[in-house]
């Protein structure tokens, strides 16, 4: 049987989540953020700014008071967020239990693993530059002896993917090349090849001279096929239908689309 969750007051001045360029207006949104984006949130997420927001903007001093009593050190973070979710009716008991299990599993991860989870979460939210910064911090800092080479290779691959999303192909190539040097993996070589073609660069002889020419030919053929499909999809995209409409309509729609894309791209660069 369903139910209706009575909403609390929305804030006049929202809470800014800088990591995500997001503004939170209600306790329900805060609960949602914690539940689904916990990995993105820094360890010092519970601070005076958050508590003041809950108390003064959301007018929920009883919750902020409870958090103040509960949270005495960063070690109380997990228990505190679980308590916060329990105070808000947004999630059921079962959902909170699942969250509790997730947070326990997360806590068992090493610090580098948690940092990768945070970077992955940022990349998933298209905060590519933020993700790249964290990936690079892991790669440039001292290696954690508990982590094997595969761990760091994966980080480089993820970093390269983020560069690719930002169309920073030189950086992506540099990252992939490093991975290829360390692993010699054919999958990585293919990615290198694809990015070369995509960015209009000549595949580096030094990298590809030892590759099987038949394989290279196949990769090229695969690429052209994908490109042709993409062109067809562009023609069929609803955006293309726009140009059949009136000039005023086109202007209005393009302006809206441009703003949307600018916002999204701005977010990727944060």
């Amino acid at each position, binding site marked *: *049987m*369903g*139910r*209706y*969750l*009575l*909403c609390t007051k*929305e804030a006049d001045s929202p809470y800014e989540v800088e990591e995500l360029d*997001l*503004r*939170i*207006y*209600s306790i*329900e*949104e805060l609960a*949602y953020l914690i539940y689904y984006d916990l990995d993105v949130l820094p360890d010092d997420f519970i601070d005076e700014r958050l508590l003041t927001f809950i108390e003064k903007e959301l007018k929920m001093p009883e919750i902020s008071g409870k958090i103040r009593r509960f949270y005495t050190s960063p070690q109380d973070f997990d228990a505190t967020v679980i308590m916060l979710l*329990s*105070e*808000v*009716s*947004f999630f059921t008991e079962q959902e909170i239990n699942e969250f509790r299990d997730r947070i326990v599993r997360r806590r068992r991860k090493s610090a580098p693993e948690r940092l990768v989870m945070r970077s992955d979460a940022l990349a998933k939210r298209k905060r590519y530059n933020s993700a790249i910064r964290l990936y690079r911090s892991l790669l440039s800092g001292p290696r954690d002896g508990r982590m094997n080479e595969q761990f760091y290779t994966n980080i480089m691959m993820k970093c390269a993917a983020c560069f690719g999303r930002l169309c920073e192909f030189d950086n992506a190539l540099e990252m992939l090349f490093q991975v290829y040097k360390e692993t010699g993996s054919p999958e990585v070589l293919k990615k290198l090849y694809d990015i070369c073609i995509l960015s209009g660069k000549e595949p580096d002889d030094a990298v590809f001279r030892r590759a099987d020419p038949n394989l290279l030919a196949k990769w090229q053929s695969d690429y052209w096929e994908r490109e042709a499909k993409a062109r067809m999809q562009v023609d069929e995209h609803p955006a293309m239908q726009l140009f059949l409409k009136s000039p005023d309509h086109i202007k209005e729609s393009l302006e809206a689309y441009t703003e949307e894309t600018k916002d999204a791209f701005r977010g990727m660069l944060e």
Partner: protein
Amino acid sequence: MGKGLIIGYDLLKDYCRISWRYEDQEEIKDLKLTDSEDPYPVKNSICKKKGEDTWLIGGEAYQTALFGSGTIVDKVLRLVSMGGHATFEGITYDAEELLGYFLRETLAVLYKEAGMKTVNQIVFTVQHLENQVIDAVIRCARSLGIEKKRIHVISHTEAFLHFVLSEKRELWTNMTVLFDLSQEGLNYYSMEVMRGIKPNIAKAERAFLEEGFSPDILDSKAGQRMADNIMANCVERVLANKTVSSAYLSGLGMNTSMQWGNGFLKILCQRRRVFYIDNLFARGAVLSGNTFEDENAALPYSLMCEGRIDVDITVDVIQGVQKRTMILATAGSNWFETKAAFDFIPDDESSLKLTVRKLGETRKTLLEVPFDGFEFPGNKLKRIGAVLAFTSGNSFDITLKDKGFGEFFPASGVTIRRSFVIE
């Protein structure tokens, strides 16, 4: 002399009656503009003096118009309900503006008599609760500097209810009735307290008597005889098989009923007390003002009458960690003041379900407003703004607005509106 005034305006289409009292005194006074024989009805007429921004009411208005020094407009409230206007010296005035001037001038007389201008409550009572008239009256009163929370509009039926309940209990042990005569015709009101159910209900109803007559016929002997016969027939018919503790007469011509109505009075006065009351509705309006002014003065009854809704409307919600039943409308409230707004997030629900229960009944009815037209990105990912507002005594609208879920899932702007009639 008290902290403020409680004022009752009985507004008919062509005249009004005004009563008032000091907040801390029980005595109700009736306002009169003149000392003439029938001083209390004030014609809803407004006169503008030529060449001046001076507005006149009452006898002075007619005199000025008669001598050609001004232009007069009659029946201002009728004009308001028609959405009309009038032109004075080439300038057109909305009916609402003219009503505003009328209220201003009548209040000026009242303030002078009372020796103060502080209004604690002002209650307007009208025969028919029309949206246009209610809104116009409230706006006019506000334009005169009276706070919105101190302005109320009730039906004649409700004013009658308040009046009777303020009388001695023995007068309303059983049913109480009222015959009111105006230019609109003859109306019959009945009131009784329904005991034995929780909560106790004070119920009043109005019926227009088709066989009624215009007060103008009382100007002739023949007309008086006809009026007496008609009244006798009405009284016999409506009171047949009813136990009536007391009866009231009000309105134009009823103050002289002892001269022309011996026939019907003989029937009416059998085994009950009969009263003629000047300004009955205006006084009832003043008495209702007590309940707005002081919560402790609220009547120990739920009121069931024209202008009041007779249903409770509720919805079950989760607030914090607790289930509760949220009341959206309470039986006995004024329908035009009944409005509820709340935001909610549906969890595994495809419609909003409301429970409706009629006053005095145990049976409940479930009403549903489906979320057709709302696209949900996932369960619990949409905040919906709901507004419930009554459009008459037995009908209401529910409006649902898609508010999205913050910046996670922006609002679509889609709105759903459903109207319900309560049978």
